[in-house]
């Protein structure tokens, strides 16, 4: 099986008048269909830059990124991107927020709208569809933001520290929710985080980046003896501690 996403020899630098900052150096990796890849690395190492490159918001200076074996620009709408904050618009109702993507791409077909309604029902937001975002809890807002991304039915989902703005308790719950939703909708996902526990609790594989300029230190396969654990249960599994120590050591050796 060919991988869904192939990244080969990608380099990227930021340019300012005072000089050039190398952000990413020679990254090569791939993501399979249905896989959950988590990227960890020290803060400021270029994780978000990498996601912007993968989405095609900014073109890579060197190297190639291919989705289903063709260049990125042919796939703009096939990739969903979830930002750090939910950015739900207060001047729209929850429903009009989640269909924003469909509205922008003029894809408000009956099937797509029915899919959105079904997701709102499945993920406990249907009763709030005519409310304003400010009436939702932090976790509900994040779910709404995820539904907004999933409404466009992307084949690849990019998540840029989507839980970092939440308090710890909400964070653990939303982590379970989002994981369940992504698995239920059978999406391939790449999540960026600096929280190692979060990474281990959700990932099929963890990609460890070094500090800037970021290169790949290691790609670690995460295997739990019970395959159907939800993130919260994984945190209590015996393997968890070992993976944590392993990634911790790797980060410190290269940090």
């Amino acid at each position, binding site marked *: 099986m060919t991988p869904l996403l192939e990244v080969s020899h990608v380099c990227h630098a930021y340019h300012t008048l005072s000089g050039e900052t190398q952000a990413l150096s020679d990254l090569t990796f791939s993501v399979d269909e249905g896989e959950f890849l988590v990227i960890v690395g020290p803060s400021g190492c270029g994780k978000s830059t990498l996601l912007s490159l993968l989405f095609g918001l900014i073109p890579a200076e060197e190297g190639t990124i291919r989705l289903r074996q063709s260049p990125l620009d042919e796939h703009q709408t096939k990739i969903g991107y979830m930002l750090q904050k939910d950015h739900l*618009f207060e001047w729209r109702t929850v429903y009009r927020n989640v269909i924003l993507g469909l509205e922008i791409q003029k894809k408000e077909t009956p099937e797509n709208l029915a899919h959105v309604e079904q997701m709102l029902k499945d993920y406990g937001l249907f009763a709030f569809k005519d409310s304003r975002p400010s009436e939702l809890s932090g976790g509900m807002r994040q779910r709404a933001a995820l539904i907004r991304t999933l409404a466009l039915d992307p084949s690849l989902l990019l998540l840029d520290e989507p839980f970092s703005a939440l308090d710890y308790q909400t964070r653990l719950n939303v982590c379970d929710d989002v994981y369940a939703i992504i698995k239920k909708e059978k999406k391939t996902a790449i999540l960026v985080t600096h929280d190692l526990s979060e990474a281990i609790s959700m990932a099929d594989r963890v990609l460890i980046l070094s500090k800037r300029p970021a290169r790949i230190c290691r790609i670690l396969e995460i295997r739990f003896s019970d395959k159907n654990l939800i993130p919260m249960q994984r945190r209590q599994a015996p393997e968890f501690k070992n993976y944590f120590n392993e990634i911790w050591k790797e980060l410190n050796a290269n940090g």
Partner: protein
Amino acid sequence: MDKNPISSSQAEYVRNHRRHHHLVAFLRFLFFFLFLMLWEISADLNWIDAFIFSSPGRVLGTILDMSKDCSIFRHTGITLYETLLSFLLVILVSFLTATILWFSGTVSEILEPWLVILNSLPKSALAPLLIVWLGANTRTIIVAGMSVAVFGSIISMYTAFKDTDEEKIKLIHTLGGSRLQVLRCVVIPSSLPSIISILKVNIGLCLVGVIIGEFLAAREGLGYLIIYASQIFKLNYLITALIILCIIAFGLYQIIQSLEHHIRKTRSL
């Protein structure tokens, strides 16, 4: 809220709040009433020269006089019409210009110093030039009204557009939106509160500009009435015109205010 029984301390708080409001409203009215009384009495007892300072009674008389031949309505109507028209044009022009500036960073970089210079220029200095260019007519007055407000309005509106949260703009891009959709879905809705306060400032500025224009280039309107009255020393007319201007300024501001309430309620900003 009305489902729960209100506690006595809450009721006390609400009562105090209302009482304060009523007190302020009453004292405002009382202040106004006392001012009118004092003005009238000092004029009647010759403490002040009623020829120069007029008096509430004389103003009322003037209004009644001028109502008979409808001239007061004509002057007020003309000033109102010119102010509203220049206000609408200011909003239209500054919205379009701000949009263009927002779309093109280069254009805005080129134009910014010019806008700042034009904005700091005393606009009353332009009025004589406008008369030469456009003639002594309504067109000149409307352009004079616009000239006072338009440059500041463009700058404020462009600043409001530019201050839009970059992350919200990025969101639209991640949903595959174009720059036009960024403008429609994020930039304009999130700038709406600033746009309303720009409206509030500009309605007053347009009135200032229209009066300046009428001083110089009109045969009708409150500005003309003021100049005419001062030249023939009919200060009753002048003060009447000033009072009507106060009422117009207040009324126009109230209209924008209620527009703001309406928008805030329907869009829950």
